[in-house]
């Protein structure tokens, strides 16, 4: 706890750190669950929407018609694709994929019509829109979005 004096008033205002912390337990439901099960198997799944697009990650409900997406109708897409946009993150924050400056990228995986957001492990001056990247899988996959460790330059091996 600390006290800071403000010149504008004679009042000494107090201040203290306040932490809110909780490990939320989330049930995924069938569609998100199927996507995460796919990641655990090192396989990315998408859903074909009412406009004919393959959307990755698959939405639970179609944005155009509001109809439910069936987990059984998910389709596999490739583990490599093209960067459709990127940004440089100079000040990594707690919980982000890297604790050093890194790029975020939107990647349209081959076979998909929309882009997936994740970190891209590449030097800043090497990152370009349009560059080919592939998924670097986590050494151990557990069924979460961190099963994708990040994207990295190159084609799938």
């Amino acid at each position, binding site marked *: *706890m600390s006290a800071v004096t403000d010149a504008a008033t004679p009042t000494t205002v*107090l201040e*203290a*750190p*306040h932490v*809110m912390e*909780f490990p*939320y*337990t*989330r*049930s*995924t*439901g*069938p*569609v*998100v669950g199927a996507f995460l099960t796919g990641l655990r198997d090192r396989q990315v799944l998408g859903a074909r929407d009412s406009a004919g697009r393959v959307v990755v990650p698959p*939405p*639970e*409900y*179609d*944005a*155009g*018609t*509001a*109809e*439910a997406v069936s987990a059984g109708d998910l389709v596999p897409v490739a583990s490599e694709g093209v960067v459709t946009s990127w940004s440089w993150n100079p000040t990594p924050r707690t919980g982000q994929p890297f604790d050093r400056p890194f790029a975020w990228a939107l990647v349209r995986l081959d076979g998909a019509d929309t882009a997936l957001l994740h970190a891209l492990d590449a030097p800043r001056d090497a990152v370009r829109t349009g560059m080919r990247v592939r998924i670097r899988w986590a050494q151990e996959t557990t069924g979460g979005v961190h099963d994708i460790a990040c994207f990295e330059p190159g084609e799938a091996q």
Partner: protein
Amino acid sequence: MSGNRAAVLGTGQTRHVAKREDVSMGGLVREAAQRALDDAGLAWSDIDAVVLGKAPDMFEGVMMPELYLAEALGAVGKPLIRVHTAGSVGGSTAVVATHLVQAGIHDRVLTVAFEKQSESNAMWALSIRIPFSQPLVAGAGGYFAPIVRGYIRKSQAPLDTGFKVALKDRLNALKNPYAHVREPDITFEKVAESPLLWDPIRYAETCPSSDGAGAMVIGSERAAEDSDRPVAWIHGTAVRSEPTMGAGRDRVNPHAGRECAKACYAEAGITDPFRQIDCAEIYVPFSWFEPMWLENLGFAEEGTGWKMVHDGTTALDGELPVNMSGGVLSSNPIGASGMIRFLEVANQVRGTAGEHQVPDAKVAMGHAYGGGSQFFAMWVVGSEKP
């Protein structure tokens, strides 16, 4: 009535349970919403706007979850509003949706309220320690138990009043397929002998922590006339708020609750609520709040609400059945609890309440409250056009 006529075209809710581990948050709200649409005989494309209600975002650890839920709510390309008025939110949300129709802006508004408490822990969320503050309040029970004691002192109510309310609501819940707490072998003795948590409140007199959602489609007069399903006409709505910590504020019989009821009755043309209202769903998270709210809502004189509990007036077959569904005591997905009160009474006047239907219910009241007994939302619905 204020503005254009409006009616409930359909309702839906989930089976309330401690943990809905088979669905995401999107899946949970969707289940209630889809049921409301099906009940109204409508499709997603018939909906003009969506109003979502939910209690604090910390319960699920999602800030303004309506943003992420836009697709699940079928709201993409539509207006989407998120209401948060603490425990009263389910009721306030229905009122906001009603306003959209009464204002003549939309013909069919979907309103949904939910809580997925199993994502975290309500006790934790309600007891987050703020620096410099007193850590003494032990959850909602710790806050409300002294108020219940105040009621007992003021009214000289017999100490078993709360047990009787709890027993009634638990038994009513057995007739409600959506209720969370189902104890077929519940008895007066079991309630009376359950652990004393926050004296004077016993375990069996408290509400559970539930995952659940409730939803309604609220429509204009034209939409109601186009519908081939029974509808509940909205005769009156009201919301009222007062400060939490006001000096000398009556927390047992809050002024805001009395004012809210008065405004709601005035709009609905009700002058004698006990005679004119056939049944009510009242927000009772701790059993003693039934007699307290009966007085606050003008169904009983101050200090006498407990008598209606003891003489069976509020039983399912009584003169004024209260919480026919089993109430909050039997299901409490916090953010949805108020909306469930509202939709249950809509079902009563539509004649679609099922096994806990009050025969011939024509006018019914839904009630919600929140905060430190300071936020109130109410409506009166009827089978006839106002």
